[in-house]
C-alpha cells in the first residue's frame, strides 16, 4: 500500500553515527536491532511488555538535552535521537551492570544446562568487564527446587530479569510464579504447595536468559554443542507450532519453539514441548507382528506385507471393495495421507476412509466453509467460539486469542455447554444444553427474542455480536453429542452474517492435512467432493469408487454388523479414542481382517491380525497442515526405531503387492503429484516449499488471510538459547549454537512472515466467498458447473499471477485426459436443515458433556514419562444445585448410568456446569467416558445415583442404536 502523500511515516535516529529510519513508537532496542546494531539485553523480549529490569541495555541517548544513559528497551524512538552504543560511558555502564549481575551468580557453567547457549555467558564475553571486584561470599539457596513436575528452579543462577514471571502473567495468564521477598532476598518462586502447573510452563525455560529455569525432561541430557537440529512443525495438535527438534546421539532430547509471526510467536505448550519422550519409549513397535494361532508374533516386513496384501485382496474379492475401510490418518504427514487416500480409492477401491474418529466435524463443513487464519481471528473485532475448550485442546491458539483479547480488544462471544478456559476472557459467554447449540445460535441471531429464561443475556450478547461478519472458531465442544447441531449453528451464522469466516478447532495433529488429502468419505484430495472430482481423479488414478463411503461411525457400525471384512487402522485406536467404546469394541472385533499401522501396540492394535510399526514425528519428513490450512514442513531428525517405516512407503509397498503401481517413489514426487492434481494445492510447488517464505508455512489460496497491522516484533538471536550475541541474523529460524543439517532445511534467506501468496489469495478468496454467498446457500451442493467458473475457483492466486494454468492430471500412469478438462472445483459448504428441535429428556436424567483435557490417557502423553503423571483422574462435574437435589455432597461416590453402561465415580460440585448438565472429561486415566456414549444418538443422557441405592441401576433405557450410519 504505497502512500502517495508526503507525510513522513518514519522517524530518523542516529545510531553510532549512522542515520537510520525507525517506526514511530518503536522501542530503541528493536529499532537498533533492525538497523543491525545489537544492544545487549536480558529482560527485554519482543513478545512481552518491556520492564527495564536488568539495565543491560543502557546506552547513551541524546534527545537534544545532552547525552544520558537510558535503558533502550524502555524508550521509544524519537526524531533526531542520537544514540551511542559503543561510547566509553556506555561501555563502562554495561561493564558495571554485568559485574553486578554476576555478584551472586554461581558461575557453575560447566554443570549448567544452559552452558554453551547462555545469553549471560555470551554477553559477559562480548560486553563484560572480564573480572569482578567482588570477593565476598555469594548468596546460597538450595539447588534446584521443583516449581512443578516439569520445571526446576535454581535460584542462585537467577538474575531476576522478570521474563518468566512476566510470561506467566502476561502471556499465559497463569500467574503462579512471582517475585517473593525483597532486596537481596528476592527470588522467583511459587506459593507454598501450589506448583507452577501451567500448560505453558516450558516456555519459561526457553526464554530464561540464564540457567535458572530447567526443564526436567532435558536436564543433564545433553550439551548444546552436542546437539543437532532441524526446523519442523509440531503435530501434537492442529495449531502447527514451528519448532526446532534437537537431538543427541540420534535421540530427540529437546523441542524449542520458533517465532513465526502467523502461528506460534515462539511459544509451545508443554505437551508439544515434552512429548518427544514418547519417541524413545520402550513401548515403541520396532518390528511387524502377525497373528498366528491367536497370538501376535514377530514377523518380517515381507511376510507381514504379504499377509496384509493377501488379506485385503481376499476381502475385496470375496465381499467387494465396499467391505474395506481405512480409519485414521491424522497422525500422518500430508504426503502419507495422500498416498493412503490414493491407495484406498484406486487400489482397494473403497471410499470408506475417515481420518476423524467420530470426534470431529463433517469434512464438508471443515473444507467447505470459508476459512479464517489465526491472524484473521485475532484481528477481527468479534470472534464467536463454537467448540471445545481451546485452552485444553489447542493451547497455543488460546495464547493467541488471549493476547488479542487482552492487548487488542478482541471481543469473544462463547456458546458452550460448560465454562471453559476462555470463559473468563469472553465479553459474553452463553450456556446451551448439550446438543442445542443451534437453537442458542438462532436465538442469538434473532437478538435474543423468543428465548426462554436467559433472554436478557442473549440479547446483550447479540448486541455485542453486531451485524457485520465475524470469525467463528468451530469445533466439537462435546464428544457425547453428534456434530449436527454445531454444524447447523455455523450454517445459521454464515447465512445471517455473510462474510463470516471459520477457523477450525479440530485438534488432531494433521487432521486438516488428512482431510485436504481426501481421507474422509466423499472427499478427494484438494478439497474436492467425490462427485465433482470423480472424472478428474479417475483420469489421474485410474479409478475412483462410485459411491460415497462410510465415516468412522458408519464403518464401525458396519463392522459390528459383519459388513467390513478388511479394516486398516492408520494410527487410529478406536478402542481408546472413539467416543463410543462399545461400538468401537464391536466394530474392531467384528471386522474380518484388521491391520494396524502404529507406533505403539495400542488396545486396537492388540486385536489386529497384522501390526506394522510406523515412523512418527521427528523420524520422517514431509509436510503438515494446521487448522488454518497452512502447510509447513516436517523434517526428519532421528532414525525410526527398529524397522519402523514411513506410512507412505508402507502404502506404496502394499499397492505393489496388490499388483498396482502408485508411481510414487519419494516425498518430492508425491508432493509434485499433489500440487498437480489436488485443486486446492495448485501452485504450492515443492520449490516454493523450500523457500524461506515457506518457513512460516504456506496457505492454499482458498484460505483468506488478513494483513496484520504494524511490523511484527523481531525475534532476536539472543532470545533463542544458544545464540551468541555477536552472531548475525541467521538464514533460518533456528537457534545458533546447535548443529543444523543443511540438507534437510533448504536454503532460506530470511524469516519474514509468509506474506507472499496471501495478498493475491485474499482477493481470490474474497471473490470466491462472494460468489459462494450468492450461488450456493441453502441449495445444497450443485454438481460441477460451467468449466470456466470451476477453473477460476480452482486456480490459486499464484497460478493466476504467473499466468500458469492448472494442468491436466497425469499421475498414476494414466495419461491422456480429455482435452481441456478443468480441475474440479473445491467443496463449498451447503447448509442443511437444522436438526429438528432438541432431543427430549426425562426429568430424572442429566445430559452429558464430554470434552478433552490437554493431558489425557492418550498414547502420546502416556508414553512420555514426564507428562504421564500430569493426566489426573477427573471427577464427574455437577452443578451444586443438582447435587443438592440428589441429596449428594461434593466428593461423594456415585453411580452414573447411561443407555450403555453404569460406572462408579466421584462427583464434584462445579458452578461452571449448568443445571441439568454433567461434565465428564473424555479419555482420562482410569475413567472412561467413552463407555457411556452411544455415538449413534444425538445426545447422551445419564442418571446419577448414590452408591447406597442399587434398585434402579439395572433398568436401562430402552433406546437402542438406530442406524449404522
Amino acid at each position, binding site marked *: 500500500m504505497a502512500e502517495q502523500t508526503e507525510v513522513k511515516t518514519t522517524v530518523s535516529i542516529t545510531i553510532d553515527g549512522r542515520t537510520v529510519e525507525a517506526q514511530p513508537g518503536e522501542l530503541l532496542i528493536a529499532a537498533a536491532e533492525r538497523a543491525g546494531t545489537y544492544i545487549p539485553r536480558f529482560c527485554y523480549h519482543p513478545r512481552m511488555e518491556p520492564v527495564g529490569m536488568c539495565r543491560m541495555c543502557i546506552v547513551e541517548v541524546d534527545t537534544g538535552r545532552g547525552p544520558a544513559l537510558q535503558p533502550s528497551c524502555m524508550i521509544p524512538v524519537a526524531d533526531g535521537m542520537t544514540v551511542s552504543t559503543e561510547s566509553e560511558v556506555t561501555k563502562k555502564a554495561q561493564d558495571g551492570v554485568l559485574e553486578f549481575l554476576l555478584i551472586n551468580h554461581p558461575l557453575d557453567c560447566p554443570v549448567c544446562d544452559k552452558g554453551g547457549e547462555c545469553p549471560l555467558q555470551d554477553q559477559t564475553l562480548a560486553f563484560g568487564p572480564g573480572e569482578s571486584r567482588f570477593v565476598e561470599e555469594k548468596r546460597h539457596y538450595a539447588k534446584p527446587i521443583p516449581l512443578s513436575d516439569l520445571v526446576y528452579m535454581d535460584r542462585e543462577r537467577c538474575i531476576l530479569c522478570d521474563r518468566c514471571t512476566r510470561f506467566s502473567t502476561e502471556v499465559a495468564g497463569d*500467574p*503462579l510464579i*512471582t517475585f517473593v521477598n*525483597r532486596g537481596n532476598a528476592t527470588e522467583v518462586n511459587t*506459593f507454598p504447595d*501450589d506448583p507452577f502447573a501451567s500448560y505453558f510452563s516450558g516456555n519459561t525455560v526457553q526464554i530464561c536468559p540464564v540457567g535458572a529455569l530447567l526443564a526436567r525432561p532435558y536436564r543433564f541430557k545433553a550439551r548444546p554443542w552436542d546437539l543437532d537440529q532441524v526446523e519442523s512443525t509440531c503435530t501434537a495438535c492442529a495449531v502447527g507450532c514451528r519448532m526446532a527438534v534437537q537431538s543427541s546421539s540420534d535421540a530427540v532430547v529437546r523441542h524449542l519453539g520458533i517465532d513465526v509471526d502467523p502461528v506460534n510467536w515462539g511459544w509451545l505448550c508443554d505437551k508439544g514441548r515434552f512429548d518427544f519422550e514418547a519417541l524413545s519409549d520402550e513401548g515403541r513397535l520396532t518390528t511387524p507382528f502377525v497373528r498366528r494361532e491367536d497370538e501376535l508374533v514377530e514377523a518380517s516386513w515381507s511376510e507381514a506385507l504379504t499377509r496384509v496384501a493377501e488379506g485385503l485382496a481376499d476381502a475385496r474379492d470375496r465381499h467387494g471393495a465396499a467391505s474395506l475401510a481405512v480409519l485414521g490418518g491424522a497422525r500422518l504427514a500430508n504426503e502419507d495421507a495422500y498416498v493412503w487416500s490414493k491407495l484406498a480409492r484406486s487400489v482397494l477401491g473403497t471410499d470408506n476412509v475417515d481420518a476423524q474418529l467420530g470426534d470431529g466435524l463433517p469434512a464438508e463443513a471443515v473444507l467447505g466453509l470459508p476459512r479464517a487464519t489465526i491472524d484473521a481471528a485475532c484481528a477481527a473485532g468479534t470472534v464467536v467460539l463454537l467448540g471445545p475448550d481451546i485452552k485444553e485442546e489447542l493451547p497455543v491458539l488460546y495464547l493467541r486469542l488471549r493476547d488479542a483479547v487482552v492487548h487488542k480488544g478482541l471481543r469473544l462471544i462463547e456458546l458452550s455447554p460448560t465454562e471453559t478456559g476462555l470463559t473468563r476472557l469472553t465479553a459474553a459467554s452463553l450456556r446451551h444444553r448439550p446438543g442445542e447449540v443451534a437453537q442458542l445460535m438462532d436465538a442469538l441471531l434473532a437478538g435474543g427474542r423468543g428465548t426462554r429464561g436467559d433472554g436478557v443475556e442473549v440479547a446483550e450478547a447479540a448486541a455485542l455480536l453486531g451485524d457485520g461478519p465475524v470469525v467463528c472458531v468451530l469445533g466439537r465442544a462435546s464428544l457425547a453429542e453428534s456434530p449436527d447441531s454445531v454444524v447447523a449453528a455455523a450454517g445459521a451464522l454464515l447465512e445471517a452474517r455473510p462474510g463470516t469466516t471459520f477457523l477450525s478447532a479440530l485438534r488432531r495433529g494433521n487432521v486438516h492435512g488428512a482431510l485436504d488429502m481426501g481421507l474422509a468419505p466423499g472427499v478427494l484430495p484438494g478439497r474436492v467432493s467425490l462427485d465433482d472430482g470423480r472424472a478428474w481423479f479417475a483420469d489421474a488414478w485410474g479409478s475412483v469408487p462410485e459411491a460415497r463411503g462410510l465415516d468412522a461411525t458408519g464403518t464401525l457400525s458396519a463392522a459390528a454388523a459383519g459388513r467390513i471384512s478388511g479394516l486398516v487402522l492408520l494410527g487410529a485406536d478406536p478402542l481408546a479414542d472413539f467416543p463410543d467404546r462399545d461400538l468401537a469394541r464391536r466394530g474392531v472385533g467384528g471386522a474380518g481382517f484388521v491391520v494396524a499401522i502404529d507406533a505403539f501396540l495400542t488396545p486396537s492394535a492388540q486385536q489386529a491380525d497384522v501390526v506394522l510399526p510406523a515412523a512418527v514425528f521427528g523420524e520422517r519428513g514431509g509436510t503438515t497442515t494446521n487448522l488454518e490450512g497452512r502447510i509447513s514442513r516436517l523434517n526428519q531428525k532421528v532414525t525410526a526405531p527398529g524397522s519402523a517405516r514411513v506410512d507412505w512407503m508402507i502404502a506404496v509397498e502394499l499397492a505393489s503387492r496388490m499388483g498396482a503401481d502408485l508411481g510414487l517413489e519419494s516425498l518430492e514426487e508425491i508432493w509434485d503429484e499433489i500440487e498437480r492434481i489436488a485443486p486446492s494445492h495448485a501452485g504450492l510447488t515443492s520449490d516454493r516449499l523450500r523457500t524461506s517464505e515457506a518457513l512460516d508455512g504456506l496457505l492454499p489460496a482458498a484460505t483468506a488471510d488478513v494483513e496484520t497491522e504494524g511490523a511484527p516484533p523481531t525475534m532476536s538471536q539472543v532470545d533463542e538459547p544458544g545464540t551468541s550475541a555477536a552472531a548475525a541474523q541467521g538464514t533460518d529460524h533456528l537457534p545458533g549454537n546447535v548443529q543444523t543439517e543443511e540438507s534437510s532445511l533448504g536454503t532460506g534467506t530470511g524469516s519474514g512472515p509468509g506474506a507472499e501468496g496471501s495478498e493475491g489469495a485474499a482477493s481470490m478468496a474474497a471473490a470466491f466467498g462472494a460468489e459462494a454467498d450468492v450461488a450456493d446457500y441453502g441449495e445444497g451442493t450443485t454438481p460441477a458447473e460451467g468449466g470456466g467458473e470451476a477453473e477460476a475457483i480452482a486456480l490459486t492466486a499464484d497460478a493466476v499471477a504467473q499466468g500458469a494454468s492448472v494442468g491436466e492430471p497425469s499421475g498414476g500412469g494414466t495419461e491422456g485426459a480429455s482435452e481441456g478438462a478443468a480441475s474440479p472445483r473445491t467443496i463449498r459448504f451447503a447448509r442443511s436443515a437444522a436438526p429438528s428441535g432438541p432431543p427430549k429428556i426425562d426429568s430424572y436424567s442429566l445430559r452429558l458433556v464430554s470434552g478433552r483435557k490437554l493431558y489425557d490417557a492418550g498414547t502420546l502423553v502416556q508414553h512420555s514419562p514426564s507428562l504421564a503423571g500430569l493426566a489426573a483422574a477427573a471427577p464427574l462435574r455437577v452443578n451444586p444445585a443438582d447435587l443438592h437435589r440428589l441429596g449428594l455432597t461434593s466428593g461423594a461416590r456415585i453411580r452414573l448410568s447411561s443407555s450403555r453402561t453404569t460406572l462408579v465415580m466421584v462427583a464434584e460440585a462445579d458452578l461452571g456446569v449448568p443445571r441439568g448438565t454433567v461434565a465428564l472429561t473424555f479419555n482420562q486415566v482410569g475413567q472412561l467416558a467413552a463407555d457411556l456414549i452411544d455415538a449413534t444418538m444425538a445426545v447422551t443422557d445419564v442418571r446419577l445415583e448414590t452408591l447406597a441405592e442399587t434398585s434402579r441401576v439395572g433398568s436401562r433405557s430402552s433406546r437402542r442404536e438406530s442406524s449404522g450410519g
Partner: protein
Amino acid sequence: MARLSPENEVLARQIIGRYPRSRSALIPLLHVAQEQDGWVTDDAMAHIGELLGLTPAEVLGTCSFYEMFKREPVGTYLVNVCTNISCQLLGGEELLEHVEERLGVKAGATTPDGLFTVEDVECIAACTEAPCLQVNYRYFHRITHAGFDALVDELRAGRLAEEIPPHGTTTRIRQTVPAPRWAGVGAEGLPPEIG
C-alpha cells in the same frame, strides 16, 4: 492455619467494595489477616486470593515484599531493638544483649510462652531519643536496662494492654465509611463501569 473468619470475610468484602478495582484491597486485607492471627498465614493468603480473584502466588508476592507482614508466628509483643548508629553509640547493642538475656531468646526468636518476639532492627527514626526500641511499633525512648525490665513486668502483668494491643492490631476503633464517600463514588452512587 486459619483462613479469614466469617466476620473478617464480611469485613473483607466491605473493604473490597471501597475500591474501584478489587485488587487495590490486597494490602488492607493482609492487615485484616495479620490482625486476626497476629501473622499472615498461608491459608489466609490463599483466602484473600480467592476474594480478590488473584492466585495465591500473587498475594504472596505482595505480602512478602513488606517486612511488617509476618509470615511466621510472632509473639503478642514484637520488641524491635535498634542497633543502628545513634543507638549503637548510646548502648543499643548492650540493650539488645540485655533484652535477649532478660527474655531468654536470641534476636529473631519468640519466648516459649509466645509473649515476646525479639528483633534486631535498623534505624527506627528516633535518633534523638537513643537508645530506643519499639513494642508493637510503639516507641520507648532512652531505654535503660532497668527500664526495659520494668516494661517487661508491666507487659506481663497486662497493665499496658490499653496502650499496646497485641501484634497485628491495626486499629481498635474500626472506621466506617458511608458508601457515598467511598473512593471514586459521587453523590449519585457508583459510576456505571464499576457498579
